[in-house]
């Protein structure tokens, strides 16, 4: 094996010296945070259907209604949570519900084997077109795991304004006076320099197709979500590349509701 020449050995030291005193400023972090918020909003403001909105609220930390909120003022919702404030055993749910401020439906284990893994309460902010905070509310996120399979998450919140569903769900199940809505979507993950094909451009306009940049290779994943509202509380059960059918997810939703 060829050994490095003496000048090569010095390169690391020289380059380290070049960076001497160069540190990331707080201003840079502020710019990053602002850009994250702006990018999330800009990416969604163009048009987001209710179906995308419902899936987006569960898998992302920010959603844009594009006018879907009945109140007509709140156009975006951003949220955050810290898992260090959460619980990793079901016995901690009581404390989490106290934080949330109201009792919720949940299970420790589903009959199909998915088990409670952790839960956390976070906070969301609804904002208007000018990014003014119009409202603040809490939500709960519960993660269920089954072996090495992808996790299923249950998101729970009391929406400050109703979302008017304008397009039909993929499938529905009526459970007493509650309607369970099942939506699925395709997520195509592509590298940063990926150029959209004509087919991609067509797909992108669909309600159930997302293209996300940043992956090291082109990959397609399917999300599946069931959402329902009970006693003014909205529940969303969602996961990626699940081996569960719509019926199985409906069954899980009913187990949460306590009707199965």
């Amino acid at each position, binding site marked *: 094996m060829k050994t490095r020449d003496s000048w090569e050995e010095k*390169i690391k030291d020289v380059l380290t010296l070049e960076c001497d*005193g160069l540190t990331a*400023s707080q201003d840079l972090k502020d710019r*990053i945070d602002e850009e994250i918020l702006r990018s999330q909003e800009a990416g969604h403001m163009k048009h987001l259907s209710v179906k995308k909105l419902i899936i987006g609220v569960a898998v992302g930390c920010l959603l844009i209604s594009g006018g879907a909120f009945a109140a007509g003022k709140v156009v975006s919702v951003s949220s*955050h*949570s810290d898992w260090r404030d959460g619980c990793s055993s079901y016995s901690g749910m009581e404390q989490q519900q106290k934080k949330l401020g109201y009792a919720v439906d949940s299970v420790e284990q589903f009959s199909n084997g998915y088990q409670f893994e952790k839960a956390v309460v976070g906070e969301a902010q609804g904002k208007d077109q000018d990014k003014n905070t119009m409202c603040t509310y809490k939500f709960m996120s519960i993660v269920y795991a089954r072996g090495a399979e992808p996790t299923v998450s249950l998101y729970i919140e009391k929406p400050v304004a109703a979302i008017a569903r304008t397009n039909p769900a993929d499938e529905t199940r009526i459970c007493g006076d509650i309607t369970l809505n099942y939506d699925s979507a395709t997520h195509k993950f592509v590298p940063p320099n990926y150029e959209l094909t004509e087919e991609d451009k067509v797909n992108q306009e669909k309600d159930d197709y997302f293209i996300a940049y*940043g992956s090291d290779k082109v990959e397609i994943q399917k999300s599946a979500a069931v959402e329902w509202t009970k006693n003014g509380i909205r529940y969303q059960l969602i996961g990626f590349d699940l081996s569960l059918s719509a019926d199985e997810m409906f069954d899980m939703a009913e187990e949460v509701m306590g009707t199965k």
Partner: protein
Amino acid sequence: MTEETLVRQMKEGDKVSFDLLYEKYKNMALHTAYLITGDRSYSEDVVQDTFVKVYLHCRELKNDSGFKAWMMQILVRTAYKCGRKKSRELPDDEAVQKADTGRSPSSLEQVIMQEEAQAIARAVRTLPVKQRSVVVLYYYQQYQINEIAQMLGCLEGTVKSRLHTARKQLKKALEDDFGMTVSGVL
């Protein structure tokens, strides 16, 4: 808390975990971006773009333990694009200013060492961005050839070729422009 846990929590929407990962890697990312672009302002832009992409696309990372490599891949590609756009050489006054900052040679040996360091630094800066990126990743970040190939999205042979060309150019620059005696077979 392990990095893997932080990544998993970030993917679940936990902004605090993202902030902690940013704190861990911010300076390393900034240094790498600076060495590739050769410009402080550009390097901040690169770091900004990188971490925005990291947060917005973190769910696309399949292997949580591979966060650093994935983040570096985004950073290097972003810096690479940026480096291609800008002038490939820093103004001489900035190079001189940097070399002089906070260092006052007290002996002939120190002066010689400093001149040698300046010569190497300047030679690296004058490399084309493709070769400079490989030099930074190989010598500064100490990545393996296969890791660099993955980051740049090219074949290992391409990385070896760029490294070989870079060594040759560095050696020539050091010999021709700064009168350094450079030994070894390239």
